[in-house]
């Protein structure tokens, strides 16, 4: 998939996963990569930007002898997720018509 498109989708995907519950970097990456091919890519910059935009907050929790950083979705993040979902739904109808058109050829 195109890098720009992947980036746009990634934001929404990360927010959607965090809506299910708070989680930490590795687990989040695992969940994302189950749905989207993000081989050779770190989620760090995206998480950092989403945090700077106020969509995420972080907190640390002790786990097997060290502190693990958890990510939590903020109300602003939820609102952004809704906005992204609406946009993607619009996009889906366009995509559907493209695919339909391609299949008819």
């Amino acid at each position, binding site marked *: 998939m195109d890098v720009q498109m992947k980036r746009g989708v990634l934001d929404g995907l990360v927010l959607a996963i965090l809506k299910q519950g708070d989680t*930490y*970097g*590795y*687990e989040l*990456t*695992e969940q994302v*990569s189950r749905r989207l091919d993000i*081989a*050779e*890519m*770190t989620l*760090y*910059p*995206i*998480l*950092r*930007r989403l945090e*700077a*935009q106020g969509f995420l907050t972080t907190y640390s929790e002790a786990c*097997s002898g*060290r502190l*693990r*950083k958890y990510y939590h979705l903020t109300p602003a993040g939820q609102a952004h997720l809704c906005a992204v979902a609406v946009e993607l739904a619009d996009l889906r109808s366009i995509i559907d018509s493209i695919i339909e058109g391609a299949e008819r050829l």
Partner: protein
Amino acid sequence: MSHLEQFLANLKAGLTDLPSEVAADVLRYHSDYIADALSAGLEPEQILRRLGSPEQILAATRDELAIEDALRKVGPLGLLRTSRRLIGRGLSRAARSVALALLSLAPLLAAVCFYLSAAVLLLGGLASGAAVLYNLALHRAVLAGIEIAGQVGLAVFLTAACLGLAWLFWLSGQGFARATLLLLRKIANKQPPTGLRTTAAPAGHKPVRRYLTVALAVFLLAGFTLSALADLPQTYWRLWNSQKPADVRLETVMLDEPVDRLSLVLLNTDVTLRPSDGPQGRLIYEKLSYVDLVWRLTDGVLTLEEQSNGRLPFFHWLSIHRGTTSLILDVPLAAAGSDLDIRTISGFVEVDLPCRQATIRTSSGDITVRRADLTDNLDLVSDSGRITVVPVTAGGS
């Protein structure tokens, strides 16, 4: 050193030009990731493949930081820094150098303009303070203490305000100059523009600079307070006096002694001096209700002073009256002529009697001296009026 340790070491080495807080965060995220992945049972090679190379991580982090930065710092410098960073990507090295060179012209121009403005403000501040003080020195004889304080306050305020502005402009110039230098250095080093650079962190804020700032602020506040406090009652007084019709009375005083020296300190009063017909002198004065004329004649010295008569109970104003009155003096002269010392704020002065020596000052009125005996001994100053001297031979009769 294992591959994973090598990975973290490489990552750390590439983070040196990022702010330490960001660098620590990046390292922590990835070492956490590795620890979690290991405990999930992944092989080091698998982990490394998933993370990508340190270079990829650094590049992606810088890209996101540029966007984050742009979101946080909207302003000329933020815009510049972000565009500089974004231009650095996706352009060939030569094209990047040209773009940076063109880009560096804008901050260069801005820096020059700011420096020039700072210099103009610095000179202007000093000059305006000096001008106020000079004006004060010219009229100090007719000003009350509080008015002098107000003028000094105004001078201090003007100077401090201009110096403060000059300081701000100077700092802005410094900022733009720094941006220009950064851009030029990028071109010279032929380096791709790297990520965040903490711009000359003012970590050890110089104490001298802080004292200067505090002193400037104190002067600004003190000067403003002083001039405002001194000006407030004046404004009120002028307003009050302009609302009511001036109550003018004509006062006549007979002077029985001869006069050979005159010392007059007046407000906006026109003065006419003429020789008396007889041995007795006469003083005709248009008296406004809120002004008193204090006069005495001792040992041939006639002293006149116009003063506020205390309609404002706690001030002793001299120069705040608006209305113009007139004073006519018929002076009985000693044989040798007379010495004159006349100060009026803006009245006209007309002297029509022989005088040995005269010091006359007015701000805006005309000065006319007829029958001057010795023109060398005349000291006539009118800030904007006309000065006419008619020598004794020409004025005749």
